[in-house]
């Protein structure tokens, strides 16, 4: 297993900068997720670590050894891609055994290691089967098996669950997570699905326009996003932004929004009058008769235990996640109360979060 260090890594394709000046370290045994919208540079970063692209600047160290210009085949890294790319003319056993055969591993050893991986992935009963008849999930397990059987220093996964349907994706997520808990292989996982990232990552790097915007544990990124695009990318539904203009002084514990006053964690940073936004997670809103903000119910989405209520306020639309037993009707006037200790304030021009008490004692990795 291995530690992977990226130093000022950069990749340009002609005039286009796919990844700019990124430095971070992926720890030994860590499940590290690169998360971001399409075109943010996450797959390019993964491909540079794997050796499928050469960086235009910077260095990549694998366990302290500079591998920046080494071939993919010399790096001892396994891959799993979104499209399973199994060999259709081989059965499951032969597919998993393939990387070992290429390395010239002996027959008995191959048999032992394939059996071990198959047990881990619970596909022992499929070993003799042709891969063409397998379900999506089983195909993906075989692809995983092929990556794991090598016992490479690190495993790269590029949206490996992207082709599966939603229900099954969640199951595979739990399975991958449990698998990683057992084998602790250094894993770099690329996805645009925040749910997958939250569910599996030890740490997440959120990327946007070729830049790593924030690295931290899922909970840290969820609770203490440093930028609006990070906050707005994560959560289901994502964070709400309610816009206002009044200026703020450091130390203030409330914001004045067009006649309504909302308590927030004590600010450590001020802002001149301008474009600001209050950041509110949907589960930090409660709806009742009294509260700090007025609104009108625009939509109610029943979700079983919980419901998502869309509310029009004079600062914009907001989604709240509240228990379904609370009966609410479209058009109803309501008051909103917030979990004030969990609110954020953003500068909408720079997109950055204003520092506040909320950020103190954060476990940023």
């Amino acid at each position, binding site marked *: 297993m291995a530690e992977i260090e990226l130093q000022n890594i950069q990749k340009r394709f002609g005039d286009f900068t796919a990844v700019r000046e990124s430095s971070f370290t992926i720890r030994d045994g860590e499940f590290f997720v690169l998360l971001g919208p399409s075109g943010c540079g996450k797959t390019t970063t993964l491909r540079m670590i794997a050796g499928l692209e050469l960086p235009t600047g910077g260095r990549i160290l694998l366990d302290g050894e500079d591998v920046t210009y080494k071939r993919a085949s010399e790096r001892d890294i396994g891959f799993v891609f979104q499209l399973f790319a199994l060999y259709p003319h081989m059965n499951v056993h032969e597919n998993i055994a393939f990387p070992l055969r290429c390395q010239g591993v002996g027959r008995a050893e191959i048999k032992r290691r394939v059996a071990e991986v198959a047990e881990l992935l619970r596909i022992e009963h499929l070993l003799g089967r042709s891969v063409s008849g397998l379900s999506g999930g089983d195909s993906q397990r075989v692809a995983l098996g092929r990556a794991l059987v090598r016992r490479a220093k690190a495993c790269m996964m590029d949206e490996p669950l992207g082709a599966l*349907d*939603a*229900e099954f994706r*969640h199951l595979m*997520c*739990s399975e991958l*997570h*449990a698998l990683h*808990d057992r084998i602790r292989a250094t894993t770099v996982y690329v996805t*645009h*699905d*925040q*749910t997958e990232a*939250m*569910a*599996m990552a030890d740490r997440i790097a959120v990327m946007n326009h070729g830049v790593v915007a924030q690295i931290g544990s*899922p*909970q840290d990124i*969820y609770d203490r996003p440093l930028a609006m695009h990070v906050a707005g990318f*994560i*959560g*289901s*539904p*994502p964070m709400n932004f309610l816009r206002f203009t009044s200026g703020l002084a450091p130390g203030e514990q409330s914001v004045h929004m067009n006649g309504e006053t909302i308590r927030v964690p004590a600010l450590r940073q001020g802002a001149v009058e301008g474009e600001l936004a209050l950041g509110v*997670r*949907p*589960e930090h809103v409660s709806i009742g008769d009294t509260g700090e903000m007025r609104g009108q119910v*625009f*939509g109610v*989405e*029943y*979700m*079983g*235990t919980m419901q*998502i209520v*869309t509310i029009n306020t004079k600062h914009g639309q907001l989604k709240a*996640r509240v228990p*379904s037993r609370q009966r609410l009707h*479209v058009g109803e006037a309501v008051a909103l109360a917030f979990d004030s200790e969990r609110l954020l304030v953003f500068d909408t021009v720079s997109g950055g979060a204003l520092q506040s008490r909320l950020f103190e004692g954060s476990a940023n990795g």
Partner: protein
Amino acid sequence: MAEVVVDRVTKRFGDVEANRDISLTVPNGEFMVLLGPTGAGKTTLLRLIAGLERPDAGNISFDERIVTDDPPAQRNVSVVFQQYSLYPHLTVFDNLAFPLRAPARRVPEIEIRRRVEEVARLVRIDHKLTNSAVRLSGGEMQRVAIGRALIRRPSIYLMDEPLSSLDAKLRADLRVELKHIQADLGATVLYVTHDQVEALSMASRIGILERGRLVQVGTPQEIYERPASMYVAGRLGIPPINFLPVDALPVDSAPSQTTIVGARTEHIELLPAIDGQAEVVLVEHLGGEDFLHLRVGEHKLVTLVPPGGHWHSGARARVRLCGPLCFDAAGKRLAA
């Protein structure tokens, strides 16, 4: 808009019975969602109503007029498919106007303009009317496709997974929008999906399909809280409902014929206890909440807990079930 009645309809493809003896009434102005996994027969039923397939038995009527033998064009239905299929050489305006320009309809151009602008505002594409259809994002294309369906006032709107090709955020936005548009128009909608979130959040009523049969019809609350069977209960809930033998955990009350209990988060009482019968095997952080995976003997249990790290792998918990759903040996739910 019309009331649509499906009366004892069966449809076979070779040996496969895609729809078996289905009877269903979609009242005027209702948003009916058909929910089921791939192969349950929901798209076939939609195609039968559209007239794209003919039933082997049974009848379909719109406002008491039997349309079983009418071709699609005579049924006055509007269909939105998963794939947007816009006319790439036309602008957004012309795509929206297309259904009104059919020679048979003879709608005056001034009326066309009025209706296109109205619908474009509804689906929030009015700022791009002169754009070419191919120069739109996926979400915009799907809004145009929905707008094109809405521009007519058919007997019923038929929608086959119209949101499934969109990304998560847009899907969430369009869910609310579509429900609003439907309510504003008083439109009758039959909507097919395998996504329980869409079904729960948009439907006036949900119809659950199981291998070609319609097994339960009810409001989202009815289906969620009082599912007819284990199959129906298993369709709804995030995380999925936990099925356990009745004697696996203490239960506050269960009818005597109960063999299986179905426990969702709201039925599970959980206390940290060193001697608890359940062991935490995995904590999945989802941000706003955590999925807690527990093992109770040979059984697995998944439930939601607030985030905050009170639970960790290896911790033990005492578990009790309060008011779970109870099922008999055949998988039928027993009234509490």
